[in-house]
């Protein structure tokens, strides 16, 4: 809400500097977005007298001026203008000056002659004929000879006002207007408030002879007030009104339109003016549009309406989109003779829905959406008529058509003053509370510790104790609130188990050299295609946003791999040689599509690696560390994810439940991300890992007896996974087996085609005594038997 200080002073006495006013308003709940000093964009431009004028020797149109700028020395300025003579007072932009059109002026030379500034035209100062007589003349603006040379041009032009932009919170729609802000300012400053008191003369007759108003939907239009004004005398509105409109960002048009806009700015109540003579059947009907009905609005656009939209119709057709914009046909024009004037309350959500559906938002619709006061509807109408009368804009017909189902009574609240103190923790004297509430227009009396407060409909945001506490406190001053340390029972803050587990996991990952990343929860609709997933892959069933910021952010992700690949691509593209990354976030898995309930949000860990030292097994090492952290008993199986290298990927079962897939990214998928190096990703289902009950750690006695190490070297089919060999050793070794370690795998010369050589170290130990040769022999032969069963041929 932009208001000029001058306009504000019409309603409230302000005797403090504008900065102080703003500071105090902020502390009462009215944030100031900006204070704009009028003429702020004109700097170092002064009125200057041309003392001497001589032609430039090297130019046929330039002239050299010696200027009196009120200082001891004259200033030389070269100009190309021809409409000037010696003795003229003109605006001069001096060295290092700013003009409102964005120009910055500095000293320089024009055809070899020094020029220390520029003489300005009205246009260069962004002035019109209305701002200053002669401003529209082509050439330099000649000033009235009433200013001493050197006077700042802002003073000459009367630009001494301030425009303050207040941010009005959503609970105070009543302050979206001059009067609302002025009322608050009067309370904050403790100074007098002078609201206008509307009075006007009519020319008799009776409105019922002119028009009938019928409201068919009181639900969407709880009050509709109509008046008729005849014999319009359309002309420009007075300068004070135009200035007030412009300060608040509205364009002056003519007296009638300006009055409706000014009353909206002043009272917060939007008004609408119809050309009476264009209303068919002399009827106003407030009704829902008929499906498919059309209207052409003031801005010349055509809209097709639907049955849920409220219109103001005449006897035939919609003449106005209720609360949003008028129709072209009944527009007020320079030759309009008679006027039907509307002031009404329309339901907030109805205006919002219609505006959204049609894509129209206006000053008026914004106010209806925030809410207007049903009582104020009548006041605004009277105020508009007063201005029509005062400005002699037309003749007011006697009689008002006020359609409503009854106006609300003031709300009476009874609240203990002690309960306000209990909520705030500040001892505010009761009489101070009464004083503050009364000053805010909330008629209050105290009786036996109970405040009885009469709340008018314009303050329907006030519902009870908490609201009254806020009203009192914001005026009494929040600086009175003194912090007290946390009180109450001693409580120990706890984290949820999942967070505790997640924290441990993240420490582990950081320890393993992984950097945590953060990416958006939504991805592009086509992102899953980059993973070359099958058409019927379940992950393609992503929840879509109805109103995304763009396709790039349109689907809730069902996996984290695409985001990880994007991050790795960014880093690779920036020539960062290697990286280990992880992200813990959620997969959003819909229960059904389209969604009718919240999707499952499953905690997920994604790990990504690249660089010359990384391979499938470095990633496997990280995955194993995590599985160990959660106490998972793991099995690795070949998997068949389309986005991974077909021969370099694995699924991990944790306690027999699928918990992770990892491997090298398929080169075709990497290419989709412009990645031309090998990259590795793992996606781990934390919901599975978090659910594992890790066995409690108990101490195992350290071994008392020595271990025996035996090596087993063998030849076997090259396709036998070493995991199978290891399992064979473990089962063969039985209780005595302590540790198995693969120490060599070899294929090549001296090894028969199709075979590989594999070698293990195996440690055997008993907790009951030193192993005997017989025990060792027995275990070894069992291991060998198991290996041979797999087709391995032991090498001696």
């Amino acid at each position, binding site marked *: 809400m932009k208001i000029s200080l001058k306009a504000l002073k019409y309603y409230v006495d302000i005797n403090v500097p504008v900065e102080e006013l703003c500071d105090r308003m902020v*502390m009462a*709940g009215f*944030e100031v977005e900006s204070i704009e000093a009028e003429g702020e964009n004109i700097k170092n431009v002064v009125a200057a007298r041309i003392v001497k004028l001589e032609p430039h020797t090297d130019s046929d149109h330039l002239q050299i001026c010696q200027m009196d700028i009120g200082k001891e020395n004259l200033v030389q300025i070269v100009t190309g203008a021809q409409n000037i003579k010696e003795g003229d007072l003109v605006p001069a932009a001096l060295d290092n000056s700013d003009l409102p059109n964005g120009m910055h002026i500095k000293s320089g030379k024009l055809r070899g002659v020094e020029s220390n500034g520029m003489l300005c035209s009205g246009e260069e100062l962004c002035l019109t004929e209305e701002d200053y007589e002669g401003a529209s003349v082509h050439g330099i603006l000649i000033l009235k000879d009433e200013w001493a040379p050197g006077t700042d041009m802002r003073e000459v032009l009367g630009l001494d006002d301030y425009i303050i932009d207040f941010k009005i*919170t*959503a*609970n*105070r729609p009543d302050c979206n207007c001059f009067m609302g802000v002025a009322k608050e300012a009067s309370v904050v400053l403790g100074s007098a408030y002078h609201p206008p008191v509307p009075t006007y003369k009519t020319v008799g007759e009776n409105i019922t002879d002119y028009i009938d108003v019928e409201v068919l939907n009181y639900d969407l239009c709880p009050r509709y007030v109509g008046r008729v004004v005849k014999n319009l005398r359309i002309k420009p509105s007075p300068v004070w009104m135009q200035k007030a409109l412009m300060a608040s960002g509205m364009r002056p048009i003519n007296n009638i339109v300006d009055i409706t806009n000014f009353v909206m700015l002043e009272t917060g109540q939007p008004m609408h003016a119809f050309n009476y003579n264009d209303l068919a059947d002399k009827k106003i009907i407030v009704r829902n549009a008929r499906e498919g009905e059309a209207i052409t609005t003031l801005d010349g656009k055509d809209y097709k309406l639907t049955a849920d939209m409220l219109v103001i119709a005449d006897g035939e057709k919609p003449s106005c989109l209720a609360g949003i914009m008028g129709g072209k046909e009944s527009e007020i024009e320079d030759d309009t003779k008679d006027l039907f004037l509307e002031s009404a309350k329309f339901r*907030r*959500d109805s205006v*919002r829905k219609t505006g959204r559906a049609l894509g129209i938002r206006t000053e008026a619709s914004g106010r209806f*959406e925030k809410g207007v006061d049903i009582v104020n509807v009548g006041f605004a109408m009277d105020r508009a008529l007063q201005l029509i009368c005062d400005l002699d804009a037309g003749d007011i017909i006697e009689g008002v058509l006020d359609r409503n189902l009854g106006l609300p009574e003031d709300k009476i609240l009874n609240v203990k003053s002690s309960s306000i103190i*209990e*909520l*705030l*923790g500040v001892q505010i004297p009761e009489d101070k509370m009464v004083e503050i509430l009364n000053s805010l227009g909330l008629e209050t009396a105290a009786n036996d510790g109970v405040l009885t407060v009469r709340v008018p409909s314009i303050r329907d945001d006030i519902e*009870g*104790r*908490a609201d009254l506490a*806020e009203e009192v*406190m*914001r005026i009494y001053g*929040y*600086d009175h*609130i*003194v*912090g*007290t340390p*946390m009180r*109450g029972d*001693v*409580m120990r*803050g706890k*984290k949820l188990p999942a*967070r505790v587990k997640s924290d441990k996991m*993240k420490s582990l990952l950081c320890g*393993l*050299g992984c*950097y*945590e*990343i*953060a*990416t*958006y*929860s*939504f991805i592009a609709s086509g992102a899953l295609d980059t993973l070359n997933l099958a058409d019927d892959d379940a992950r393609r069933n992503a*929840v*879509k*946003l*109805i*109103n995304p*910021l763009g396709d790039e*952010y349109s689907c*809730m992700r069902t996996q984290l791999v695409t985001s990880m690949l994007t*991050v790795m691509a960014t880093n690779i593209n920036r020539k*960062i040689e290697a990286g280990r*990354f*992880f992200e813990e976030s959620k997969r959003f898995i819909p229960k059904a599509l389209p*969604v009718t309930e*919240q*999707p499952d949000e499953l905690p997920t860990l994604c790990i990504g690696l690249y660089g010359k030292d990384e391979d499938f097994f470095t990633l496997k090492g990280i995955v194993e560390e995590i599985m160990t952290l959660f106490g998972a008993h793991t099995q690795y199986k070949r998997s068949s994810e389309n986005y991974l290298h077909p021969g370099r990927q694995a699924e991990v079962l944790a306690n027999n439940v699928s918990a992770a897939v990892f491997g090298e990214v398929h080169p075709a998928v990497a290419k989709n991300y412009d990645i031309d190096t090998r990259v590795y990703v793992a996606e781990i289902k934390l919901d599975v890992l978090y659910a594992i009950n890790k066995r409690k750690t108990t101490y195992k006695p350290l071994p008392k007896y020595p271990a025996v190490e035996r090596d087993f070297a063998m030849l076997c089919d090259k396709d036998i996974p070493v995991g199978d060999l290891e399992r064979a050793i473990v089962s063969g070794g039985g209780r005595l087996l302590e540790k198995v370690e693969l120490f060599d795998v070899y294929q090549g010369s001296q090894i028969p085609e199709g075979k590989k050589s594999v070698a293990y170290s195996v440690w055997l130990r008993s907790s009951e005594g030193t192993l005997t040769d017989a025990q060792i022999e027995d275990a070894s032969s069992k291991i060998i038997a198991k290996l041979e069963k797999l087709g391995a041929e032991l090498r001696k």
Partner: protein
Amino acid sequence: MKQQLEQIKTAALEAIENAQNSADCENVRVKYLGKKGELTAILKMMGGLSPEERPIMGQLVNTAKAEVDAALSKKVEQMQAEAEELKLKQETIDITMPAKQDKTGKLHPLNTVLNDMIDIFQSMGFDVVDGPEVETDHYNFECLNVPADHPARDMQDTFYLAENILLRTQTSAAQIRTMETRKPPIRVICPGRVFRADEVDATHSPVFHQIEGLVVDKGVTMCDLKGVLEQFAHEIYGPETKVKFRPSFFPFTEPSVEVDVSCSECGGKGCRVCKGAGWIEILGAGMVHPNVLRSCGIDPEEYSGFAFGIGLDRLTTTRYKISDIRLLFENDKRFLDQF
């Protein structure tokens, strides 16, 4: 004979003194103390002495032997020590050579800051809870005193997944879930991801993070709110930090305040960081609206409470002086490595 002994001893000690290495020492030992050594030989010559002289001479010889032996041992030890010292000297390395290490990773700066906050509030007895990121209209708006036609809905442009299902616009939704499942006294914070339809630029992101705090108990006042926020501000910005309340509006609190802290850069004098104001806005807070308590089955006549919502991204960017919020989501390793 006595004189001969004296000569041998002197010669032996001299030889020890002049020994250059362990071989020299060994030669000395063999020459004087060995089985065929000179001192041993003297002992053998004692056969020719009278019984009275024999013990006297024997003692002299043994003393000389011991003296030479001790000198020799000392010399050997000394030479070993020198050799050791020399070896250590030769093993000197260039300590400025690069370390051999497994590089550790880092938490994302948002989580580094979040963990600090969790520590602070945990120490004040706040539990840390979570809530879903996809919320229903009921939890995100209705229960928070924002009915369907309320203009406050415009304050937070919301992403919808279905008519009544949306991406939460505030962690306040978790307040409701907490109050529905716990009974007062309640003291929780709920950190989490929130979403608003803001176009991406240097200071806006459609995805950001908040930490919601909620306290409900008997007799909780606005002074308690300020006390908790002061303690928080002191931990985060330093013990001199001042906290200021400015009236504001949130549908789910009443009274509502914006909370400013004195600028930690300039101490409140006004500088570039605080744009000359001396204060920096860090969060919104207020007393839980009676309608909100009621919608969770808590009697506002019996209990009161306060809530606050801190923007984690803003806190992170100000702490580290990060100029562009987009850097947080770009995940350049050189960026992540700085925190």
